[in-house]
């Protein structure tokens, strides 16, 4: 048996192609059922996410399916010419295919390394394949190995912890300060690009009370309409800040918008709740000494970038550690996978040895006149000799498998089987010539 995977991902394939080849849940089940009906000896799992479409297959080594056949199936199913997406396709087999799946399931092949979503999507793809009864011993074991690897990587490395962007760190900081970020009042000062990015992140985590305050009301309104949030006039900025929880400052200007003394007076001494100010404007909107006011936490873009950079470095180390885990688990799986071929080959070897001994015994008995009990005894003796010699050979095969890997052992047994076949056919030919 061999394992092959063919597919395309966000790395090389434009979204226009990916969306044409994407499968929803019902299409996935339909495609897998169709494949299983056509190639019932093979196993299939189809993974379709917004970033990748991959078809995994375990098939016969000789005369089984090829990666091209799988690409052809994708083309037929979606009625798109293979030429339209051939250049974007990647095809892996055996160890490379295993390594690829393990990396995909652990998010090491994702757009955002450490994201937890891909693991759920791989599990979902596998579940659909199980529902379509298109998996078997090999892919079942392979996908369980992928899930275990993903768990091992997430447990032993900090791959999923720590944001690697300024906006991400700002959101994490807000979540550290406020128990219920959804009800926190957010004031976005200015409608710059960076402010918009932060706004997107805050909306993503569920912030509901967002107010944009911009010098140009029209521009602010445009942004507010786009994100379905509230817009306020520039004159209402101070009023908005008084009861705000989070302030994102990205307004242009040559001087500070707020200085410590004025800000302190504006906020009043009775304000009890904390205020997180993310000042990403350059030049800054808030005087740095505002951070000294109790319950006010002021962060500039540089301070957040520093954290993002530290997280990025830590994540790089984790990626190396993750790849080592993948390498180890791939080797383990490949060893099991290759050793699967050894069992039937040893069976064939036993059969050939039996055949040779049978031929020789018959030749011997035909030349001598032995009675039935004596024939029986002779057969028993020959069988014992063959079994003892076979035991010796199998012991050596196991030794080779242990020392040099199952693939070497498979090669050795394969060559013994072929030689035994030759000997067996030679003796049969001789026998035929004589008779």
């Amino acid at each position, binding site marked *: 048996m061999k394992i092959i995977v063919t597919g395309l991902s966000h790395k090389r394939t434009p979204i226009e192609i990916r969306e044409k080849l994407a499968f929803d849940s019902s299409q996935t089940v339909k495609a897998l059922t169709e494949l299983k009906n056509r190639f019932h000896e093979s196993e299939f799992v189809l993974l379709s996410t917004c970033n990748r479409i991959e078809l995994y297959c375990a098939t016969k080594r000789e005369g089984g399916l090829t990666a091209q056949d799988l690409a052809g199936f994708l083309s037929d199913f979606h009625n798109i010419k293979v030429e339209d997406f051939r250049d974007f396709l990647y095809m892996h087999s055996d160890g490379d295919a295993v390594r690829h799946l393990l990396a995909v399931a652990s998010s090491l092949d994702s757009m955002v390394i450490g994201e937890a979503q891909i693991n759920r999507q791989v599990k979902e793809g596998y579940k659909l394949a199980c529902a379509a009864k298109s998996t078997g011993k090999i892919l079942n074991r392979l996908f369980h190995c992928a899930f275990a690897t993903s768990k091992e990587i997430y*447990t*032993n490395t*900090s791959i999923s*912890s*720590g944001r690697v962007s300024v906006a991400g*760190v700002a959101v*994490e*900081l807000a*979540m*550290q*300060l*406020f*128990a*219920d970020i959804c009800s926190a009042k957010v004031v976005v000062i200015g409608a710059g690009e960076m402010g918009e990015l932060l706004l997107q992140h805050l909306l993503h985590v569920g912030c509901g009370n967002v107010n944009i305050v911009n010098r140009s009301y029209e521009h602010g309104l445009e942004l507010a309409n786009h994100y379905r949030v509230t817009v306020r006039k520039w004159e209402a900025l101070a009023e908005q800040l008084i009861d705000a929880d989070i302030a994102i400052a990205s307004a242009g200007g040559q001087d500070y918008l707020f200085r410590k003394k004025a800000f302190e007076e504006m906020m009043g001494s*009775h304000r*009890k709740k*904390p205020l997180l100010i993310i000042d990403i404007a350059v030049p800054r909107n808030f005087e740095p000494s505002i*951070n000294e006011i*109790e*319950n006010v*936490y002021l*962060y500039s873009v540089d*301070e*957040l970038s520093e*954290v993002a950079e*530290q997280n990025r470095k830590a994540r790089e180390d984790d990626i190396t550690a993750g790849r080592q885990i993948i390498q180890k688990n791939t080797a383990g799986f490949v060893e099991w996978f290759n050793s699967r071929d050894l069992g039937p080959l040893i069976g064939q070897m036993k059969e050939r040895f039996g055949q040779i001994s049978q031929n020789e015994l018959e030749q011997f008995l035909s030349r001598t006149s032995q009675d039935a009990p004596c024939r029986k005894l002779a057969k028993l003796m020959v069988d014992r000799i063959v079994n003892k010699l076979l035991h010796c050979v199998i012991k050596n095969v196991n030794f080779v498998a242990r020392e040099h890997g199952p693939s070497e052992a498979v090669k050795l047994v394969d060559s013994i089987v072929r030689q035994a076949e030759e000997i067996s056919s030679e003796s049969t030919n001789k026998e035929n010539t004589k008779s």
Partner: protein
Amino acid sequence: MPETIIFAIATVMYAIAAVIGGLQLWADGEKYRHFMQPVVCTAIVFEAVVLVFRAVAIKAVPLTGLFESMIVLTIVFGLIYLFLSIAIRQVWFSSVIVWVILAMILMTWAVARPAAEPAAVAATPWAMAHGIAMILAAVSVTFATANACLYLIGNHKLKHKKIMQVLGKVPNMEKLEYMNLFGIRAGFVFITIGLISGLGLALLRLAMLGISIGEWLTDIKIICIIAAWALLAVILVLNRLLLLKDKARAVMTIMVFVLVLFAILGVTILGATHHNFSG
């Protein structure tokens, strides 16, 4: 002798937990966290065994001495840790809490005495209510203090832009405030019950106590507890009037804890109290 050995094992267990707490902070990760829970669990079991031994020895509820009360306190604290560790996964929380427990258990060694027969007064409902309320008050104040400490640490780090030392390590700041306030409220309620029942005991069973009401009310232990109760009341009133900042509240909580700690341990070690329920 076996009691001492068992208690020593419990202490060693807490010491191991404290080392694990240090390691998980030092190693900057959570991988040691799952070792801590079984260790604390084992220590609690050993402490409970000590209490059972004492109960068998005096054939009564083993709450006659300070030593037993301290054991109960550390058991309750350990159980609080075990329950809260399900929800609060930050390493700072578990580390601080096991260090506090270790400090308490080491202080317990200082007040270790052989099991004493309970005084006749200890069997009265007033004394029982008083004992239980005061233990719960001590637990509440310690809980509030642990949260106050975490709040002050987190606040200091955030103010000084040491974000990496806070994110994922210290619980959410608002949650810490809520838990601190919860501990203060619970502490205030339990100390109030403890004081009322104590006063009732002093007024109704004075003869059984063998001291005058004047001595009872001017006992340093009682004065410390009344001071702690008053401070808790001040915190709650100022908080209600929005006149107290979170940082000030955290500092005042620590002051209450110091008073309670002195009332429980300090005066007993110094021998400056008549507050005793053993015969």
